[in-house]
């Protein structure tokens, strides 16, 4: 009967996402096509093949989906639940087109001709439309209904307020769920693109843990020059990450990478460190 319990557990885990799913008929003229879909981390792979890996990266919990039809148009609606609001936001940032504007749907969203996505609380919602034509009005109608069904946080993660806005590329802040800057020791954190370089911010569990990470980074980059920023800091150069300026403040490790030659990044890094709470 253990299997039965597992099945029940799966149903419960997907249940919260399920509760947010409106019927297709919520928008006049639409009806449901086929059965509802339900997945968890064990079987998402069967739904979307390798693309599932992209969800697992962000600590995917479960997904509920339906397909709706009106005439020859089909919508695939999927509501995914993640472990927390930041991971849901991270999933959104990995799939939105950074070149296009976002709009206020839930925390934030984006609608193109055939795709609508948004994040709210610990949910990431994606609707795709077929065939090819401008479905943006329909997408917005469904997104609006789903957004109202989801309760919870509608504000951006706190980290947003910590990145100085001067020279910040709009909508460029994103959550990297693993290996920030491609370095495993920087487990998870935020990246923001600036005109000159890329800012990063990683939160460790304690100042001691952050100090350990900082020491390993110093070792990793070999020849460094100490800098006076926050608790400790250095500048360095790396073949692939170019110029770097790294600081530690309490349980945060952050800094700037990919700085152009001849630019230390100390002034910009000081601003970032100062805003970290």
């Amino acid at each position, binding site marked *: *009967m*253990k*299997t*039965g319990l597992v*099945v029940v557990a*799966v149903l419960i885990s997907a249940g919260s996402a399920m509760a947010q799913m409106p019927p297709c008929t919520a928008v006049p003229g639409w009806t449901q096509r*086929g*059965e*509802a*879909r*339900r*997945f968890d*981390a*064990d*079987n998402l*792979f*069967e*739904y979307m*093949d*390798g*693309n599932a*890996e*992209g969800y*697992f*990266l962000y600590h995917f919990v479960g997904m509920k*989906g339906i397909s709706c039809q009106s005439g020859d148009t089909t919508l695939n609606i999927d509501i995914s639940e993640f472990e927390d609001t930041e991971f849901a936001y991270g999933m959104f940032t*990995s*799939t*939105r*087109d*950074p070149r296009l504007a976002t709009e206020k749907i839930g925390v934030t969203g984006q609608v193109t001709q055939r*795709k609508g996505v948004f994040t709210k609380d610990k949910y990431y919602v994606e609707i795709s439309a077929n065939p*090819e034509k401008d479905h943006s009005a329909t997408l917005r109608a469904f997104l609006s209904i789903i957004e109202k069904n989801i309760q919870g946080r509608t504000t951006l993660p706190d980290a947003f307020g910590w990145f100085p806005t001067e020279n910040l590329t709009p909508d460029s802040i994103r959550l*990297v*769920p*693993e*290996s*920030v*800057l*491609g*370095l*495993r020791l920087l487990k998870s954190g935020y990246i923001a693109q600036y005109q000159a370089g890329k800012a990063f911010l990683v939160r460790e569990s304690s100042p001691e843990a952050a100090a350990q990470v900082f020491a390993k980074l110093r070792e*990793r980059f070999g020849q460094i020059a100490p800098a006076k920023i926050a608790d400790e800091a250095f500048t360095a150069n790396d*073949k*692939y*990450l170019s110029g770097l300026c790294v600081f530690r403040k309490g349980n945060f490790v952050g800094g700037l990478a990919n700085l152009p030659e001849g630019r230390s990044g100390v002034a910009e890094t000081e601003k970032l460190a100062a805003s970290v709470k």
Partner: protein
Amino acid sequence: MEHKSSRRNFLAAAGLALPTVALASIGKAQQTPKLGPPSSGGFSYRVLGKTGLKVTSVGFGCMITSDQSVIERAADIGITYFDSARSYQNGNNERMVGAALKAKRNSITLSTKTGAKTKEEALKHIDTSLTELGTDHVDIWYLHGKGKPEELTDELLEAQQMAKKAGKTRFVGVSTHSGQPELFPAVIQKMPHFDVILTSYNFTMDPKMDEVIASAVKQGIGIVGMKVMAGGFRRAKPGDKQTEILKREGAMLAALKWVLKNKNVGTTIPSITDNEQLEENLKAMSVPFSDADQKILMAQLEYISPLYCRMCGSCSGQCPKGLPVSDMLRYVSYSEGYGQFQLARESFLSLAPEIRDVRCNDCVSCPIHCPNGVRVTERLQTAQELLA
């Protein structure tokens, strides 16, 4: 085939279940490698079928790479095969890959994929892919995720031919995650259209997969292996002791080395997240598959076996009440694995009434023992509870 490897042979060589104590010692033996300067030497190269493309046997699956610097570094080190797809992160992935490889474009093999259903959509996809990748051509353009022969439609093949003729791709292929025994013959039947097959291939698969791959290689088709880590170790549940051990350094490398034992595989595209994983994967080209690797993979198989039916058919005819066991397990997987409850129920209801009425609880014991360790009775009971 230079070397015939199979899961069955591997199991036989590895013995039966691996005790937990042994698992723990395997875990402890793995040391986190320190990231040093780029590795040099130790690369192995293979030719990708009739394309003549000479590629490193370990390539780079870019789908979940955390930073473009990892891709740049891999190309600098000497990895020569990189793979993306139109659908990865809604196109963001192709843009990152293109930016990372722009300085190396002429010295690497670059592939991408389209999940388009029509010729028009596919042709739009290749143009978008080229723009995002920042190149005027890719080396291989795959039809993405085909599992049935009928999905290889004439119009998609025509789109591939048009792209090839226009110089937008040098070679064309198809990627597949399932249904290889049916799909491969269909691909062969359409020769000389296809140049490459990108296929799931790992230590959990039926030994017949080796024959399927060999049949394609015989026709000159290049084989690229993916899902070499058997769906990755990311599906692991946090806090699961055995899984935590398997996730440590070494388990993924063992899985990759297992794939490379098959010389019919031209290259592989393990997903590489960071520099440390890149370094680890490189070892697969220089360190041979060992007994320790066998034990690690055995442990992973043991972990996934209770639920994972490989459709080998060994249970056929074993149920005294006549249950078509593998069919019923498949129906459960329709529901639990694919979310297709309706299909699962319809399939179950298509069984003869006397079969549908059988309840495993009524039997005192069950004579069916799955050679792959699937908990058959539990799975059959699930089918009866869910679908009857």
